[in-house]
């Protein structure tokens, strides 16, 4: 009895220590973010006086200024680029995985290997030639200059994830559909896609995290402010705001909110997509 009590009290101390440690990490993660939000609600004078002090009056209109002085336009561009890129990433990848898993294709191993190999190729290596190609195609500084490379660079990962899921779908389902006179496209839209909704949503959210935050291509392939996406918009915002630091900080906060909110709502899909991709990536 006594030893058991000893064990539990030892356990309790260990538990408290672990929680203290993990909570200090929470503090470490939140500290820069809270400091950002605190200072985004101050005047510039207050920020310069002491960045750790509370504001006298909370300056919520910093957010209104940030939004109206450019962020709104960058947001709109990000939504357009992400929506189009995401739709085509999912469409092409699921078609690809469907074709590969449901038909006997000549050279299907080679085709799969080629597309899968795309995962090992990084954006930096393609940067200079892509810039030249996009100029030649007169796509430089258009939405398509981002959308096309985004689609191409995300297909390997997405197709790989979908392929391993499609393989696990039992063939009997389709055999019944063939007897009912479905053609292959109907089987795809009426059987495969509905069954695959969970994995498709995982793919969507992980790809959105990439597309929404992508910087390298956006920085090189776009020139006009009017079509910039948020990550580079923020950099040009910095130039426009010059000494208006608190509005700049509000802008950083606004730019970061959408994906964090989405993560809180869709954790399950997020975690599944990230881990499935990483295990085999």
């Amino acid at each position: 009895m006594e030893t058991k009590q000893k064990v539990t009290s030892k356990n309790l101390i260990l538990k408290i220590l672990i929680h203290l440690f993990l909570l200090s990490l929470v503090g470490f993660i939140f500290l820069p973010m809270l400091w950002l939000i605190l200072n985004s609600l101050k005047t510039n004078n207050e920020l310069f006086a002491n960045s750790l002090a509370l504001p006298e009056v909370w300056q919520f209109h910093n957010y209104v200024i940030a939004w109206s002085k450019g962020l709104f336009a960058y947001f709109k561009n990000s939504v357009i680029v992400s929506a189009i890129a995401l739709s085509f990433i999912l469409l092409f990848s699921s078609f690809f995985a469907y074709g590969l898993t449901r038909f006997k294709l000549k050279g299907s191993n080679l085709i799969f290997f080629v597309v899968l190999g795309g995962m090992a190729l990084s954006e930096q290596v393609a940067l200079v030639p892509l810039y030249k190609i996009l100029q030649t195609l007169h796509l430089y500084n258009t939405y398509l200059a981002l959308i096309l490379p985004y689609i191409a660079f995300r297909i390997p990962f997405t197709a790989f994830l979908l392929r391993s899921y499609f393989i696990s779908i039992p063939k009997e389902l389709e055999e019944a559909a063939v007897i009912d006179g479905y053609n292959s496209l109907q089987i795809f839209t009426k059987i495969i896609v509905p069954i695959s909704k969970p994995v498709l949503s995982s793919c969507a959210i992980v790809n959105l995290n990439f597309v929404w935050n992508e910087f390298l291509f956006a920085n090189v392939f776009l020139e006009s402010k009017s079509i910039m996406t948020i990550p580079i918009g923020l950099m040009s915002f910095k130039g426009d705001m010059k000494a208006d630091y608190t509005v700049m900080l509000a802008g950083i906060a606004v730019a970061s909110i959408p994906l964090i909110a989405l993560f809180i709502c869709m954790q399950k899909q997020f975690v599944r997509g990230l881990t499935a991709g990483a295990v085999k990536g």
Partner: protein
Amino acid sequence: MKKKKLTPYLYVLPGLLMVLSFVYIPVVANFFYSFFRLSSYSVDKKFVGFDNFVRLFTNEAFPIMIRNNLYYCIISLIVQVGFGTFVALMLESKLTGRLRNFYRNVYFIPALISLSAVGLLFTFVYSPDLGLINNFLESIGLEQYTQVWLGDSKLAIFCIIAMSQWQFTGYITLLMVVAIQSVSTDYLEAAKIDGAGPIRTAVNIIIPLAKEQLLVCSIITIIGAFKVFTEVYSTTSGGPGKSSQVLGTYLYQNAFLHDDMGMAAATGVLIFIITVTVSIIQIKVTKSGEV
């Protein structure tokens, strides 16, 4: 009949064509470009053999870049993979209870913020006059430890690396948590019956069984360290001087500031060789069943 045989290819074709035209063709073209002197505004190019590579390897910035990329790699392996796995083991121990998902999700949040937003935020955090760190040090009476951080050529790269650890350690923790969760409870029960404590269970049972994920996390981290660009670009652009220069920023600056696209392509070839070699090692090790 002929139409039927073609249909399956129509499903595969759009994806294949996209990857070939916007991933493979540019990567192959990059190899080609690395042997030429070329500028962004004209179509003229002049064959220069290995000159771009010679200029790259003999450039005074080259050892600095390689050193910085290696620092990035080693510190990220220690902190993100090492410490991140340690945190994951702690989260999955029986002692964290209901809060474990809360912790895991909080640690992951920075990975959702765009690199440039994090870079801008940390230029403020590190700012000498109004930054979080110096203001904090002053408020607790440690003025003598205040620094110019990103403005100090010895410290700049480490400040940027520290920022990356803040952003991505939780990502590796998340990946490792899922791997640890997939370890069969039978093994854990058996260890418990044998009287193994939490540390022995972690070292002898969990780590060996989660080895594959650990390898994948290390590979992602190594590749990421040699591809790093936005983190440096949005904070110091490689400065002060060349002190925080990395391969990614060097490539960018040669291509789009110094109009030396051949040199940029040669840097791209080097990044390609490093990242693809690491990927091949991963495939080899995974396939041979050593992991």
